[in-house]
């Protein structure tokens, strides 16, 4: 029996490169949302630390690194990105598979903040939104999660179904920033 073929959210849309700014799709990873049960935050954090090497991040922060990252994702919600979640996590939190729910893109390059400043109402100045900082916000009309994963590198997550619009908006902003720099 034939296997079902998998398709990534941004297939055929990325990568894009404009004047040193790049937009690419993040490598596919298992994504699991963790919502701690009442009073289980501390224990959950310990288990997460033991099993996956990082404590539960505080609001607006992420923990871990490329390949195994926990990104704060909303009120009482953290997204574990990378590893398959340890079974023991389920004793302390509601786990929901979100691996296919999000288009995850990486915006990188000098001026990435300027690109996002055209789309996102957040203060992303480097000294205010540092590496490891994350936020839930809006990119144009889309709900997004934005994490600074490098000095000039952002991880942006939007609903999978909106991947085309996400790429469209980012590309226009990238071109706008590039045109300003050229003049």
């Amino acid at each position, binding site marked *: 029996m034939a296997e079902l073929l998998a398709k990534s959210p941004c297939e055929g849309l990325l990568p894009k490169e404009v004047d040193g700014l790049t937009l690419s799709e993040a490598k596919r990873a298992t994504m699991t949302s963790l919502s701690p049960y009442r009073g289980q935050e501390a224990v959950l954090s310990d288990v997460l630390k033991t099993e996956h090497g990082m404590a539960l991040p505080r*609001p607006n922060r992420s923990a871990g690194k490329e390949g195994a990252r926990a990104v704060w994702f909303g009120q009482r919600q953290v997204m574990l990105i990378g590893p398959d979640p340890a079974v023991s996590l389920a004793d302390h939190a509601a786990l929901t598979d979100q691996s296919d729910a999000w288009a995850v893109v990486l915006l990188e390059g000098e001026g990435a903040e300027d690109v996002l400043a055209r789309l996102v*109402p957040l203060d992303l100045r480097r000294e205010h939104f540092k590496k490891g900082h994350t936020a*839930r916000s*809006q990119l144009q009309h889309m709900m997004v999660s934005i994490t600074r994963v490098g000095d000039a590198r952002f991880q942006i997550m939007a609903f999978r179904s909106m991947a085309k619009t996400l790429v469209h908006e980012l590309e226009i902003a990238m071109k706008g920033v590039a045109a300003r720099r050229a003049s």
Partner: protein
Amino acid sequence: MRLTCPVCGERDRREFYYMGDAVALRRPDPEAGDAVWDDYLHNRDNPAGVTRDLWQHEGGCGAWIVVTRNTMTHEVLETALASDVKGSVG
């Protein structure tokens, strides 16, 4: 306009959904009677001054927030998580 989400910090108004008077937190007993339910659902003050509203940080963390603000000066006096406020009013 900017509101301070107790979870996320100060954010642009566009990230928030406005619902209305925070009286919504005080849901009456099912047997409270028509007048009480009528008040709860329909009758609202329109204060020139301090008011308490419910907002949701829908474009952010999802938290419902009680915002205390002044309709005359637009000053935002306080923001608190609705779940905390509800917990304290019972």
